[in-house]
C-alpha cells in the first residue's frame, strides 16, 4: 500500500527522483525535463602541440530555466580521439568550477581531438547535452600532417547529422557586461602588458562574475567574434537525450562526493538482488564501505575520499561463508557512447606555417625545459581524509611476537586469542567470537579482515605463523556500521602488509579508483625585477592564463603580464559566468613587435 501511494505521488509531482530500488520508474519521470546543470570548459588555447600543457577551467552552472543551485561538486572531463579516450579527469568543483592543467602526451598523433565535460547528473539526459569542444593537436615531429587531410564522405554525413542534434538546443546567452581594454595596441617583446576591465554600466552591482582569462597567439583557426558559450535551456535536448539513455542506470547528482556504481550478475547473467558488497583496501587497520544491490542488481557507493587514488577490493558479503560466483561489474563513467566525428579543419598555407612554427617553439621550449616553469601546483591542497575505521577500541589486541613462537594460526587462535573459536566446515575455516554483552558465543561467524581488507573466511590465515603476524585485534561485541551488524570482528595485520592485491583476486574485483585532478595555475616570467632578465629564450604562445578571476560589476580591475619573444597578433579572451549562471565573455586584440 505504501509502495503504491509512493508511486502515485511520484507520478503526480513528476520530478526526476532518484533511487536505488526503482531506477526504471524514476528514470521515466525525467522525460521532458531540462537538465538542471550545464557544463562548459574554457581552454587556454584551441591548437596545441603534443608535449605541451593544456590549461583549462570547467564551469558547471545551474540551468537558467530552473531556479536551483548547482548541486554537483564533481565534474568529469574526457579528451578523446575517434578511437578511444586519451585522458580522463575527475575535478573537484568548488562553487561550480574547477581548473587545472593536463599534459598532452608527446606521442599523440596529429588530429582533431574532442574535449567532453559533464557531471554525473547530466548523464541522465544523455550525451547530447555534454559540453564538447574540438581541439587541434599536432605531433611535434609530424611535418606532413597527413591525418588532418583524411576525409570520408560517410563521416561527413554522420557529422552533419550529429551537428543538427547537438546544436539545436543551444541558447546563445552571452552578456556583454564589460570590455577588455589594453593599455595600448602594440607591445614590444618582454614588455609589461596591462589590460583593464571597463564595465558597460557604472552602476555597482554586488553580483560577482567568475571568469578565466587567456592571452594567446592567434592562429588561422581563431574565430572572431568569439563563439558564444552554450547554455542549455530547451527541453528538446532532454527528450533527445532520454532516447539514448541506457536503461539500467540512473545517475545521482554528486553533491557530497563520487558515486561508484556497478552491477552484480549471477553466472547465468541474471541480476543478483539484495547482495551486500564491501569495499576495503590494504592498510594497517580494518576499513570498509558497504552497499546493497537493488532489484536490478545495481549498487552504488558514495565513495569515501580515503579510497581515492587507491586500489580497492570489492566483494560480496554473505552471512554464510561460501565464496559466491557472482560477477561484479563496475560502471565506467568515462565511457562515451556517442561517436566522435571530428570536423577536420581546412589546412591553409597560413595554418601550416603556424603549425610548423608552433612545433619549432615547442621543440625549443623542450630543449630549454622552459615549459616546466609555467606550472604552479602550490594550490593543490590536501583535503582532509578521514580513515573509514570499523572500530576504534578493540576488546583485545594480541601481538604473537610477545609469546612463544607458534607454527600456524590454528595454534595462535587456540593459545593466544581469548574468546575465539576457529571452526572448520567443508574445508572452510571460520571464527566465532564470544559476545561480551550476552556472555555467550555469537551464532554467526565474525567477519575477518586481513591487512585491512575483508576476506570471506579464515582460510588465508591458517598458514600464518607468529613471525608473519604483527597483531590480531578482536571486537567482541556487536559492531554496527550503518545498517550492518557484525557479530564481532577479527582483524589480522601481517608484518609485511605489502600491497599484494593478488591474494584477494580469486574472490574479489580489484580496481584502481582515480583521484581528483590537481589544481594547477599558469605562471609566466616577469622581466621587470632586477636579475630576472632571463637569457632563456621565451617563445610562449600563451602569454597569460588566469582561471581564478572574480569581478564585481562597477569595480575597477586590471591584469598585468609580460609579452614573450614570439611576435604576432594575440587574442585576449575572458569567459565566465555571473552569479545567476549567465555566461559572460569579452575579447580584445594586441600585437607584439620586435
Amino acid at each position, binding site marked *: 500500500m505504501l509502495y503504491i501511494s509512493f508511486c502515485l505521488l511520484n507520478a503526480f509531482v513528476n520530478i526526476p527522483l532518484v533511487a536505488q530500488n526503482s531506477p526504471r520508474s524514476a528514470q521515466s519521470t525525467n522525460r521532458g525535463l531540462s537538465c538542471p546543470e550545464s557544463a562548459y570548459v574554457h581552454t587556454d588555447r584551441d591548437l596545441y602541440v603534443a608535449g605541451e600543457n593544456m590549461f583549462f577551467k570547467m564551469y558547471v552552472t545551474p540551468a537558467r530555466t530552473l531556479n536551483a543551485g548547482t548541486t554537483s561538486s564533481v565534474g568529469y572531463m574526457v579528451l578523446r580521439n575517434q578511437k578511444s579516450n586519451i585522458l580522463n579527469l575527475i575535478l573537484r568543483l568548488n562553487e561550480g568550477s574547477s581548473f587545472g592543467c593536463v599534459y598532452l602526451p608527446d606521442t599523440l598523433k596529429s588530429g582533431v581531438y574532442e574535449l567532453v565535460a559533464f557531471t554525473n547528473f547530466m548523464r541522465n539526459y544523455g550525451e547530447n547535452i555534454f559540453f564538447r569542444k574540438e581541439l587541434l593537436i599536432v605531433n611535434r615531429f609530424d611535418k606532413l600532417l597527413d591525418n588532418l587531410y583524411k576525409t570520408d564522405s560517410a563521416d561527413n554525413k554522420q557529422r552533419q547529422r550529429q551537428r543538427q542534434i547537438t546544436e539545436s538546443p543551444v541558447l546563445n546567452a552571452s552578456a556583454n557586461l564589460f570590455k577588455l581594454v589594453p593599455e595600448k595596441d602594440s607591445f614590444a617583446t618582454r614588455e609589461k602588458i596591462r589590460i583593464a576591465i571597463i564595465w558597460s554600466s557604472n552602476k555597482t552591482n554586488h553580483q560577482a562574475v567568475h571568469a578565466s582569462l587567456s592571452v594567446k597567439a592567434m592562429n588561422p583557426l581563431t574565430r572572431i567574434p568569439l563563439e558564444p558559450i552554450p547554455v542549455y535551456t530547451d527541453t528538446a535536448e532532454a527528450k533527445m537525450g532520454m532516447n539514448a539513455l541506457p536503461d539500467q542506470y540512473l545517475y545521482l547528482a554528486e553533491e557530497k562526493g563520487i558515486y561508484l556504481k556497478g552491477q552484480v550478475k549471477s553466472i547465468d547473467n541474471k541480476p543478483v538482488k539484495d547482495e551486500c558488497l564491501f569495499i576495503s583496501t590494504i592498510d594497517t587497520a580494518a576499513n570498509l*564501505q558497504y552497499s546493497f544491490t537493488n532489484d536490478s542488481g545495481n549498487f552504488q557507493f558514495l565513495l569515501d575520499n580515503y579510497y581515492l587514488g587507491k586500489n580497492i577490493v570489492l566483494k560480496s558479503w554473505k552471512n554464510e561463508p561460501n565464496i559466491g560466483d557472482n560477477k561484479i561489474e563496475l560502471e565506467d563513467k568515462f565511457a562515451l557512447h556517442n561517436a566522435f566525428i571530428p570536423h577536420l579543419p581546412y589546412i591553409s598555407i597560413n595554418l601550416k606555417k603556424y603549425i610548423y612554427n608552433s612545433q619549432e617553439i615547442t621543440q625549443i621550449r623542450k630543449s630549454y625545459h622552459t615549459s616546466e616553469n609555467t606550472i604552479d601546483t602550490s594550490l593543490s591542497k590536501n583535503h582532509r581524509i578521514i580513515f573509514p575505521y570499523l572500530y576504534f577500541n578493540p576488546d583485545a589486541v594480541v601481538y604473537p611476537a610477545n609469546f612463544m613462537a607458534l607454527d600456524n594460526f590454528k595454534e595462535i587462535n587456540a593459545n593466544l586469542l581469548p574468546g575465539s573459536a576457529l571452526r572448520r566446515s567443508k574445508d572452510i575455516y571460520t571464527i566465532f567470537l564470544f559476545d561480551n554483552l550476552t556472555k555467550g558465543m555469537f551464532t554467526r561467524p565474525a567477519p575477518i579482515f586481513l591487512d585491512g581488507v575483508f576476506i570471506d573466511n579464515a582460510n588465508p590465515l591458517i598458514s600464518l605463523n607468529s613471525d608473519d603476524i604483527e597483531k590480531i585485534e578482536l571486537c567482541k561485541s556487536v559492531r554496527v556500521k550503518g545498517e550492518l551488524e557484525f557479530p564481532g570482528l577479527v582483524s589480522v595485520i601481517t608484518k609485511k602488509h605489502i600491497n599484494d592485491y593478488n591474494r584477494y583476486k580469486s574472490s574479489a574485483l580489484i580496481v584502481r579508483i582515480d583521484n581528483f585532478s590537481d589544481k594547477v595555475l599558469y605562471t609566466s616570467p616577469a622581466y621587470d625585477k632586477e636579475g630576472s632578465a632571463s637569457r632563456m629564450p621565451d617563445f610562449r604562445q600563451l602569454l597569460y592564463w588566469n582561471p581564478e578571476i572574480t569581478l564585481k560589476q562597477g569595480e575597477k580591475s586590471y591584469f598585468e603580464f609580460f609579452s614573450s619573444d614570439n611576435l604576432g597578433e594575440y587574442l585576449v579572451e575572458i569567459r565566465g559566468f555571473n552569479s545567476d549562471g549567465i555566461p559572460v565573455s569579452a575579447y580584445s586584440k594586441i600585437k607584439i613587435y620586435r
Partner: protein
Amino acid sequence: MKKLFLISILLVASFCSYAGITYAPDTVQSRFFLLERLTGTKYMDAGHRNEGLYFIEEWTPGRIILESGEEIDNLSLHYNGFQDQLLWLKDRTVQIILDKNIVSEFFLMKSGVTYHFKKYKIKLAKDNRDTYCQELYEGKVKLLVIRKCKLDSDAFNEEMLYYIYVPRPVYCMLIGDKIYFLKNARIRSIYNAFPGKKDSLRQRIRQQHLKVKNEKDFIATIHALEDILLL
C-alpha cells in the same frame, strides 16, 4: 525494512518537490548513503529503569556532524551524561553507542529548542580526553557545560532495579585555547576563575544589575562580561 526505509526517504523527496522546495536531487540520497558512515557498538539495557541518565529523557530528533564534515540529520538520539556517550536509535529498535571518534558535533531538538554539543579535548581527572560539551554561549568567549550526572546511591533500590541519576554539570569557559573551569553557574565562580579581573567584573555586574538565578541568567552574564574576560 531496508525497502521501507528507502521508500520513506523517497516519499520525503516527493513531498519536498511538491511543496515547492528547491530541487536538490542529492540531498535525500546522500543522507541515505551517509548513514553508512555511522559506526558504533550495539547496546542493550540491563533491564532496570534509569531516571536522569539521559540529557533528554526520551529519544529526540537530532543532527550529527561527522569528523569528515558530513552532516546527517533526522536521527533519533540520546545523550548519556553519566558515560558521556551519544546513542542512536536505529530502525526504532536497535540502540547503538556511536563511536566518539567519528562524531564531531551533534544537535538535539526538543520543543523548538536546539541543544548543541561539540567534542572538546578537556582534561577531566587524569587523562586528556574528548568530551561532549554543550555550547551555551558562542562568542569570542565560549561557555561550555559538560552535562555530567551522578548515580544517586541513596535512591538506589535493588529490588525495584531503579536507578536515579542527579545532574552534576561542569561549567567551563573557553577563551582562545585556554579552558577555565567554573565551580557552578554562579557569579562567584567567575570571580574565582579570574581573580585578577574581580574588581572590573564586579563593577560591570553592579552597573548592569546582573543577577544569576539560573543557567539562562548565567549565559546573559557571561555575554555582558565578555569584553572584560577577553582582556
